[in-house]
């Protein structure tokens, strides 16, 4: 599934205008402990979190994640968006809490594997 389809289906707001939404999303991961994401997420996962610190971009780049979805209308820090544009990591925002957005991602067919 392409990231663009997820953005459209779940009405996500894309915060990184230059990002590539043709990326293939292979699954999903949800966690707010970045050390846990480093340990357990997989390449191509879309990551659901409420953390907005610029380290989320570094972690997503390290793990080659397809994108980051920030929940609860979290506003990413300006530095985070700048780094995300540099690293080509799409950042999207939803007004939904993590539980709801993860449920919808699951319903779209994404799994954590």
């Amino acid at each position, binding site marked *: 599934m392409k990231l663009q389809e997820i953005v459209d289906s779940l009405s996500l707001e894309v915060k990184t205008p230059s990002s590539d939404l043709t990326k293939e999303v292979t699954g999903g991961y949800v966690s707010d*402990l*970045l050390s846990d*994401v*480093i340990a357990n997420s997989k390449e191509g996962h879309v990551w659901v979190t409420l953390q907005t*610190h610029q*380290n989320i971009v*570094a*972690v997503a780049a390290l793990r080659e994640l397809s994108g980051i979805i920030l929940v609860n209308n979290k506003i990413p*820090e300006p530095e985070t968006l700048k780094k995300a544009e540099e690293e080509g990591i799409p950042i999207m925002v939803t007004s939904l809490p993590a539980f709801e957005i993860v449920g919808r991602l699951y319903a779209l067919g994404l799994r954590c594997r």
Partner: protein
Amino acid sequence: MPVEFRADLHIHTCLSPCSDLYMTPYRIVEKAASLGLNIIAICDHNSVENVDVTRKLAKEKGINAIPGIEITTAEEIHIVGLLADIDGALRLQDIIYENLQPGENDEEAFGYQVIVNEIDEVLGFNKRLLIGATRLSVTKIVDMIHSFGGIAIAAHIDREGFGIIGQLGFIPSDLRLDALEISSRISIETARKKFKEYSHMPWITSSDAHNLSDIGRVSTGLFMNHSSFDEFCLALQGIDGRKVMLD
């Protein structure tokens, strides 16, 4: 010529909801004195309301009690701020209170937040949600501590929850931390291996005491010309023979 002062720079009082009620300033100072500690720092969660009384009691025993606070950042990282004086600590507390998660402490769920005097009498209860997080980012908190002339230390970096590496994956290279704190949960030898990429930064070990028997379970040797906040800052930077030695 610098001489060694033993320091435990992270001790909670009964003001912290998660702390034992016996952690009164009087008992903390008695315990610290019995262990031969020269310097302690009182670091309650998001508050400094038991600091001044501890400082006065400690002074009578010849112990330097540094005003401190353990701040919860928006990322839920614990940052210890150590200040030169109580005025700076109180001004920092004002900003923390303005930015603390709203809500009232639930004493049944989190514990009592007791403000006491020098003879263990209860002066009142702090009603704020001290267990909660502030809405200030770790970068802002570190800058704010510096703006009051203080020292910013990443607390218990070996702990997954509330430790900076657990919460953020790694320590951002542009974050201007003055020191990293290793808790008693991990040996210094293990920490040196596990965190070797941060060996260029000053390290301290502190007890993070929540009850009396925790005090001094680990401590740090500060080699300084005399016991003062300025000398402590110089020791962290390793200036003119001053240094920090771990157990």
